[in-house]
């Protein structure tokens, strides 16, 4: 089951993501983002690259945007598509995570996401966990 849905926006992509807790939300949001970007065309190998990501921010909104933008940036610089994420530590201001991915040649790339933006950003606790709405510049 997809853990995200696409919402209307004239120029860009607006997405709602959920998770059963905050860690789940961060993980699912990263999965959603790369699901929008690319589709696997060659089967997975053992040659996964593992990247440790540490982020600090003044608040949760910033941490969330920094996390997604750091992944986009790494993906582009290292020519990787990420498909697995482990959120090791997460509070309002700190994130420690591991992202695993493979060379982008193993994927069919559909959409270039330039960045995650603050415009209309909503992170909230809901009954079943956490939910975020974010606009990606494409």
């Amino acid at each position, binding site marked *: 089951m997809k853990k995200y849905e*696409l919402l*209307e*926006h*004239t*120029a*860009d*992509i607006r997405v709602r993501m959920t998770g059963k807790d905050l860690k789940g939300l961060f993980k699912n949001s990263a999965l959603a983002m790369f699901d929008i*970007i690319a589709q696997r065309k060659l089967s997975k190998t053992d040659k996964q690259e593992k990247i440790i990501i540490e982020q600090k921010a*003044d608040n949760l*909104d*910033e941490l969330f945007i*920094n996390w997604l*933008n750091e992944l*986009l*940036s790494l993906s*582009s*610089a290292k*020519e990787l598509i990420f498909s697995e994420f482990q959120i090791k530590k997460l509070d309002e201001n700190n994130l420690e995570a591991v992202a695993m991915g493979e060379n*982008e040649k193993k994927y*069919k*790339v*559909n*959409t*270039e996401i*330039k*960045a995650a*933006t*603050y*415009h*209309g*950003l909503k992170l909230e606790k809901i009954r079943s966990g956490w939910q975020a709405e974010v*606009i990606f*510049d*494409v």
Partner: protein
Amino acid sequence: MSNNIQVPLEKIDDYRWRIPRSYKPGMRVPGIIYADEKLLKDIRQDKAAEQVANVAFLPGIVNASLAMPDIHWGYGFCIGGVAATDPENGGVISPGGVGFDINCGVRMLKTNFQYEEIKDKIKTLVYALFSDVPSGLGSKGDIRVNEREEREILVKGAKWAVEKGFGTHEDLECTEEYGAIPGADPSAVSERAYERGKAQSGTLGSGNHFLEIQVIDQLYDRDLCDEFGLTLGQITIMIHSGSRGLGYQVCDDYTRSMIHCLQKYNINVPDRQLACAPVNSQEGKAYLGAMKCAANYAWANRQCLMYLTRKVFEKIFALPWQKMGMDLIYDVAHNIAKIEKHLVNGKEKTLCIHRKGATRAFGPGHPDLPQRYKKTGQPVIIPGDMGRNSYLLVGTEKAMEETFGSTCHGAGRLKSRTAATKSINADDLLKELESKGIIVRASGRGTIAEEAPQAYKDVNEVVDVVHNAGISKRVCRTRPLGVIKG
């Protein structure tokens, strides 16, 4: 979505609508939207007008928060926005007022060919261009550079490409800022941005970026067409691209740092994507130095793309490009911030002009224009969607008076990408375009549906407004024959 009904839009004249300062406490100036009644209906459909009002919060903003008729909902700034701030009066610079794709822009070149002469070669040309000009997401070019060279590109811009043999001095003369904006500071660009930029010079990118073979199908001003050497049925080429990953990273880096500036400089804006800092602050200066690097990278990039295009024509026609008259008409940036001199209430001021989805449109005689365009005014290139038209305009004196020498930048989106993908079948669309004589090659099928003509406003209506409002003047119109999409 009718979120916008509540934004008051007062009619100034047939082509201008005002959002009064009283709409939101915190607006320092009114908002002014250029549109006619018909386009205004579309504008009311999304949150663009609200964003025009939000931009009016920026410290030091001068006269008005302006929007062009191709305005649509963006993030932070609307797309199609122009904002001038006065650094002497606490004026700020905002990375969100430029966008992630710094110096996304477009260039137009002409050829000596008439449509009748090459109509049977269009398909061959499109396929050759598609194979020789790297396009698509994260596409990597053949023109790979090392870090030392990359630093050089960031300072020299298109001049770097010309020195490498990828063009001529005349190309630089026909590029905004002569292809390199002075004051670029490579030390303000992060390691990551370098890393992202290294492999992508000479690549088109994806999404709405394109390379098109076009034919002139309408002349509006005979004298101007004569000046530019343009006739009915003549083949032209348009290239739309930007600064790729390097620009995105610069915007991301400085949005991060400027969010902290809001508190530091006690700035109140209703949207964090409008994060900004005083132009004269250390943070503002650093961003400007880095943004100029990305802008120069984009100019080098479009110069390389033009070189690759000329090469393809040379291969197909076995003639040097000079013999085919493939001269650059002009290259404009439509996502950029510039330090420019303008008259405010009769006094000359040095201002920071943000153009986000807007094009510089300097009038005749402007000192920044090259000699060849002093008489005509600055050429302005307006790309449309792949099924309809594109335009060549010139800047006017009225643009200098009303819009800080700015005009629209394209058709402007009407439908979201998701809505377009849902309602449009890529195969049907390709057939329909082919029946109209338009050959399309794209890296992804998704791109074709997302970029369908139905997803855009009619560029003809947008250009009618800027022409009738007097902020630019129509020279000629083209229609597409061959389209290469990223």
